[in-house]
């Protein structure tokens, strides 16, 4: 069974089977919008807030998704499998890159020293 995933930040939509995780489906269809990191639940780059729809999920690293976040639908796109159409908002640390064309400069000077990869309440 296939469902439609909508990325609220960009309006992008793509189909995702119930056996596929949302990130994998996006990549397979060569769609963009959710930043791709490790694809395996560890790095937190593909963090999304699910605003509508139901899904099953697999284990995600607590270093990047707190229990409270997970309970409130803030999850990793690489570890959720749709059970209905989904609407998601990209909230990971690379989220700004999808709405503004990012520059290819990288900052080591700590000017962007937000707490990278950590659950939101620890920031």
């Amino acid at each position: 069974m296939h469902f439609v995933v909508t990325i609220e930040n960009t309006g992008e939509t793509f189909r995702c089977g119930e056996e596929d995780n949302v990130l994998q489906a996006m990549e397979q269809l060569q769609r963009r919008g959710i930043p791709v990191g490790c694809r395996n639940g560890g790095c937190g780059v593909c963090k999304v807030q699910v605003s509508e729809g139901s899904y099953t999920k697999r284990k995600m690293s607590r270093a990047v998704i707190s229990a409270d976040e997970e309970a409130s639908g803030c999850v990793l796109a690489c570890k959720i499998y749709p059970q209905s159409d989904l609407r998601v908002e990209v909230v990971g640390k690379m989220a700004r890159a999808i709405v503004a064309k990012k520059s290819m400069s990288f900052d080591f000077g700590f000017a962007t020293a937000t707490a990278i990869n950590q659950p939101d309440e620890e920031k």
Partner: protein
Amino acid sequence: MALTGVLRPGHVALRVLEMGPALKHYKDVLGLIETARDDKGRVFLKAWDEHDHHSVVLREADEAGMDYMGWKVASVATLKKLATDIEQSGLCTDLGWVPAGEHPTTGERFRFTIPTGHVMELFAEKGIVGNNCGTDGENINPNPWPDGLKGISPSRFDHCLLYGDDLDGTVKLFTEVLGFGVAEQVMAGEDKSFMIGAFLTCSNKAHDVAFIRQPVKGKFHHASFELGSWEKVLHAGDVLSRNHTSIDIGPTRHGITRGETIYFFDPSGNRNEVFSGGYIYYPDRPTITWWDVELGPAIFYHDRKLNEAFLSVFT
């Protein structure tokens, strides 16, 4: 023997989200050899050409990342001396001894947390299980490699790249207390005086550990395993694709260390590398300096630019 003090990376202990998929990855795809499990559920593995009992320790946990990295030192006397030196340096926190036997066949380990937040260990003794190449007894009339290798089958655990904030403190510890050399460095700022990357060696290798300055504590970028040739790096890419392993980048070449490389992720998102090449480092070799504006080719020599994942994706 000229190589004294800290000899080499001895082990890396990684946290995995689920042990089953992790073992399939580390044993069948990467091709490490399991040597023990303990009553805590930890699994101990080694690469084929390592003689010591284990070089990779896996532990199932709620979060991915690195628990600690262990270094083998030349003798028990060296271990005691370096423990004292570390304590007297005042650079480290949470100093303590892990009793012998806490890792199978391993002597006591001196554990400490370095300024970038990573837990490190020194140890002098670990059981020798050999590389299974001997034909008339262990290390007698050996074949060049053993039968029964699986997957990528690198020869050894080689180094880690780690992310942390107090790079200056960590470099001071490794160079002034532990006797490492700086093979390569990445410098930023108007006068190129702000170090953002250090590639450190205690041996003839281009690096035994590397650190990049990031506003985090104790983060893990990758653990790397050695292959004998560029063609084997290409073969590793084939093995990874065949097994649907998440590949980060490569095969390609690093400017820093000149290594030929492929980056990929274990099933918990911990980055692995297999690489070949590099150069022989001697302590009198001049340090190579890269400027931050040339960081692209320094990291990925062919693309000449960083991918976003290099700095953003770690555990």
